[in-house]
C-alpha cells in the first residue's frame, strides 16, 4: 500500500490521469443530472484536489481557471438549476474575497477585527446611494441614478472609500492591542451599521431602515447584468485578481513586515519596521477588497439595507478565516467556500429533504423540531466538530523552509536556489 502510494506521489502522470478522470466524471454527472447538488459540489471540489497534486503552479492555475470559467458554468447551464448554482458560486466568490481581505488583517498582521463587515457595507452603500435616486436628496449637482456603466468605476471608488475608512479606523486603534482591539473594531462595525440605519435624518442619505431599492444593474457594451450567471464572471475576475494580489503581497516586503508585527511587535520595530505604516496598510488593503465586493453585492442584490451588515456577519467571515487556517491563502479560500456552501446550499437542501420525509410521514418529527428550523443547530454542530478535529485550520499556513546548504552554496547556484525556494513557497 505504502509503495503504491509512493509511486502515486512521485508519478505526475498518474496524478494527471486521476484528476483528469475526476473532473471528467463530475463534469458529466453534473451535465446529465442537473438537479444533483452533489455533482455540483464534487466538481467544485476538484479544485481542492488539484491543489494537492504536484504539478507546477502554472499548470494548476491553468486547470483551475479552466474549470471555473468554462467547465463549471457549462456543466451547470444545461438545466433550470443553472442560476441557483451560479448564485451560490457568486456568493462564494464574494465571501472568499472578503475572507481574504480579513485574512490580511487577522491572519497576516495579527490584528483581530470584529467589525470587518463595516467595509462591505461601505462599499455596498457607496454604489447603492449613487445608483438609485437616493443621491438626489443631498447632492447639489448631477442626475441620479447613475447609469449601469458607472458600476465599473464604482468598483474602484468602493475600493478606495473602504480603504480610506480602513485607515480612519486604523489610526485610533494603533495604540490598542489584542482583545481590546477586537472590541474597538466591533464597536466601529456597530457604529457604522447604526449610522447607516439612522442616516435618514436630518438629511436623507441612506434611507435608513427602509433600505435602497432598485439599484441599477451594471452595464457593459449595452449588456445589462441581471442574472447570477453574469455576476459570476464579474466576481470570478475580481476574485482572481484578489488572489493574485494577496499572494504577491504575502511574500513581498510588506507581507513579511505584517508577519513580523504579528509575531512580535517590539522585535519587529527593533528590526526597523515602521509599525504605524505597516498596520495601516493591513487595514487599508483588507478593507479595500471588502469594499469592492460590497459594490458587486449591491448591484447583484439590487437592494441594500442595514440588516445585511450585522455583527453576526463579521463573525461569520472571521469563522471562515479561522476555520480555513489563519494566514493561509488556500485555507481561507477553502474555509470561505465551505461555510458559504454549507449555509446556502447544503443545509437548505438537507432540511428540505428531511422536511419532505416528515411531511410524507416517513418519519415523525415534532413541530418544534421541524427540520426547516434546524439550520443553525446543524451549523453550530458542524463548526464544533471541525474545530475540534482540525484545530489548526483545514489547510494550515506553512512557513517556507529554506535549505541552508543551498543558500550558502552561493552565487553559482542562484537560479536553482530561487527555483527551489519558489517551489516551496507556492506549495505552502
Amino acid at each position, binding site marked *: 500500500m505504502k509503495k503504491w502510494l509512493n509511486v502515486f506521489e512521485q508519478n505526475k502522470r498518474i496524478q494527471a490521469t486521476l484528476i483528469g478522470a475526476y473532473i471528467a466524471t463530475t463534469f458529466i454527472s453534473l451535465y446529465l443530472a442537473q438537479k444533483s447538488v452533489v455533482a455540483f459540489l464534487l466538481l467544485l471540489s476538484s479544485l481542492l484536489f488539484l491543489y494537492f497534486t504536484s504539478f507546477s503552479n502554472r499548470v494548476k492555475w491553468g486547470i483551475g481557471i479552466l474549470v471555473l470559467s468554462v467547465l463549471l458554468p457549462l456543466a451547470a447551464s444545461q438545466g433550470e438549476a443553472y442560476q441557483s448554482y451560479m448564485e451560490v458560486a457568486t456568493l462564494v466568490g464574494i465571501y472568499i474575497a472578503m475572507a481574504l481581505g480579513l485574512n490580511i488583517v487577522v491572519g497576516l498582521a495579527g490584528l483581530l477585527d470584529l467589525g470587518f463587515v463595516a467595509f462591505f457595507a461601505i462599499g455596498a452603500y457607496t454604489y447603492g446611494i449613487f445608483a438609485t435616486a437616493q443621491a438626489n436628496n443631498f447632492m447639489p449637482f448631477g442626475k441620479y441614478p447613475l447609469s449601469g456603466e458607472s458600476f465599473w468605476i464604482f468598483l474602484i471608488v468602493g475600493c478606495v472609500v473602504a480603504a480610506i475608512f480602513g485607515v480612519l479606523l486604523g489610526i485610533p486603534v494603533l495604540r490598542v492591542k489584542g482583545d481590546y482591539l477586537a472590541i474597538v473594531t466591533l464597536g466601529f462595525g456597530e457604529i457604522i451599521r447604526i449610522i447607516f440605519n439612522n442616516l435618514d435624518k436630518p438629511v436623507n442619505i441612506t434611507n435608513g431602515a427602509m433600505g435602497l431599492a432598485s439599484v441599477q444593474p451594471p452595464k457593459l457594451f449595452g449588456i445589462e447584468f441581471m442574472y447570477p450567471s453574469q455576476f459570476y464572471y464579474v466576481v470570478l475576475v475580481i476574485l482572481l485578481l484578489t488572489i493574485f494580489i494577496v499572494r504577491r503581497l504575502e511574500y513581498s516586503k510588506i507581507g513579511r513586515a505584517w508577519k513580523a508585527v504579528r509575531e512580535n511587535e517590539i522585535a519587529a520595530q527593533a528590526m526597523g519596521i515602521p509599525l504605524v505604516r505597516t498596520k495601516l496598510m493591513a487595514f487599508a488593503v483588507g478593507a479595500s477588497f471588502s469594499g469592492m465586493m460590497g459594490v458587486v453585492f449591491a448591484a447583484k442584490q439590487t437592494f441594500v439595507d442595514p440588516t445585511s451588515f450585522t455583527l453576526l456577519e463579521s463573525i461569520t467571515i472571521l469563522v471562515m478565516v479561522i476555520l480555513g487556517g489563519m494566514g493561509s491563502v488556500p485555507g481561507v479560500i477553502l474555509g470561505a467556500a465551505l461555510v458559504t456552501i454549507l449555509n446556502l446550499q447544503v443545509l437548505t437542501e438537507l432540511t428540505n429533504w428531511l422536511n419532505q420525509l416528515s411531511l410524507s410521514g416517513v418519519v415523525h418529527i415534532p413541530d*418544534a423540531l421541524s427540520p426547516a428550523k434546524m439550520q443553525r443547530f446543524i451549523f453550530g454542530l458542524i463548526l464544533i466538530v471541525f474545530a475540534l478535529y482540525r484545530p489548526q485550520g483545514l489547510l494550515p499556513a506553512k512557513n517556507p523552509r529554506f535549505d541552508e546548504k543551498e543558500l550558502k552554496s552561493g552565487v553559482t547556484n542562484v537560479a536553482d536556489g530561487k527555483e527551489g525556494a519558489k517551489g516551496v513557497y507556492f506549495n505552502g
Partner: protein
Amino acid sequence: MIEHVLQTLPQVIIDGLALGAVYAIVALGYTMVYGILELINFAHGEIFMTGAFVGTALLLSFSAFGWLSSMPMLLALLLVLVATSIVTGLLGMGIERIAYRPLRNAPKLITLITAIGISFLLQDFVRFITELKKGNYILTGPSLFTGQVNISASSIWSGFHDASVKSSFFIVLVTAVVMMMTLDFFVNKTKWGMAMRAVAQDRETAALMSVNVNKVIALTFFIGSALGGATGVLFAIQYGTIDPYIGFILGLKAFTAAVLGGIGNIRGAMFGGIVLGLLEMFAAANLPIVSDGILGAEYKDVFAFSILIIVLIFKPEGLFGKVSVEKV
C-alpha cells in the same frame, strides 16, 4: 436644555443602575474566564439566557404548585437562584470540558469557533424545549416584586423630578452587590481563589506548585457560569419576558463592559458594567434633547461605543487594567 436633563436625572440614574448591575455580573463571567485562560467565552451570553429560562421555568412551576404563596417570596427567590446557578454552573463546566479543554493548546482564536457553535446549539436547544412545552418560545414569568416605590428626589433639590422604582430593582441591586462581594472575597481571600490567581498568572508554574490546573479552570467556569445563570434569573424578574435570543446583545454589551473596565480584572468588570448601563440610559434619555433632535435615542449604542473607544485610546488597558510590560 440642561433643566430637562437634570429633571429626569434621578430616574435615569436608577434605570441605568438596574441595567448596569445586570451588565456587571455578566461581565464578571467574561472577565474571570479571560483572566485565567485568555479566552473570550462567546457562549457566556447564552449561559445567561439559559439561566433566565431555567429560573423562569422553576418560578412558573413553583407558582403552579402553589408554593409561591405558601412561602416567603424572598425564600422562593433564593431557592430559584441557587438551583439555577448550580444548573448553569454545571453547564458551563460541561462546555469547558467538551469545547474548550481539547483546544487549550490550539491557536487562541480557534475556540471562538467552538464558542459560536455552542451558542447556536444552546439557542436552538432552549428554543426547542420551550416550544415543545408551550407552543412558542417567548416566555413570561410570574410577576414578582411589582410594588412601586417613590423616591422623592425633588426634596433633595427642587430641580429634580421624583423617580419611581419597581421593588424588583432593589432585589436586583442587592443580589448583584452581594454576589460581587462574595466573589471578590472568594478570589482574594480563599485558598481556591489564590489557586485561581496563580493559574491566571502562570499556568505552568502554578502546576509545578501542585495546583491542579484543570480543576481550577473547571471551577472558574463553574463560578462564572453560575453567576451568569443567576443574573439571568434576576433579568427575568426585572423585565418579565425572555426569549432564546436575549443572550447575544446582552453578552455583547457585557463583554464591552468587561473590556472597558480592563479585561481580566474583576473589580474593573463591575465598574465597567455599571458605567456602561448608566451611559446607555443617559444617552437614550437625553441625546435628542442635547443634540436638538438630530441624534435620536437610537444613537445610544454609538454613544456608548464612542466613549469606549475614546477611553481605550487614552488608556489602552481599560480603566483598571494593569499595564503589562511586553518583552521580546
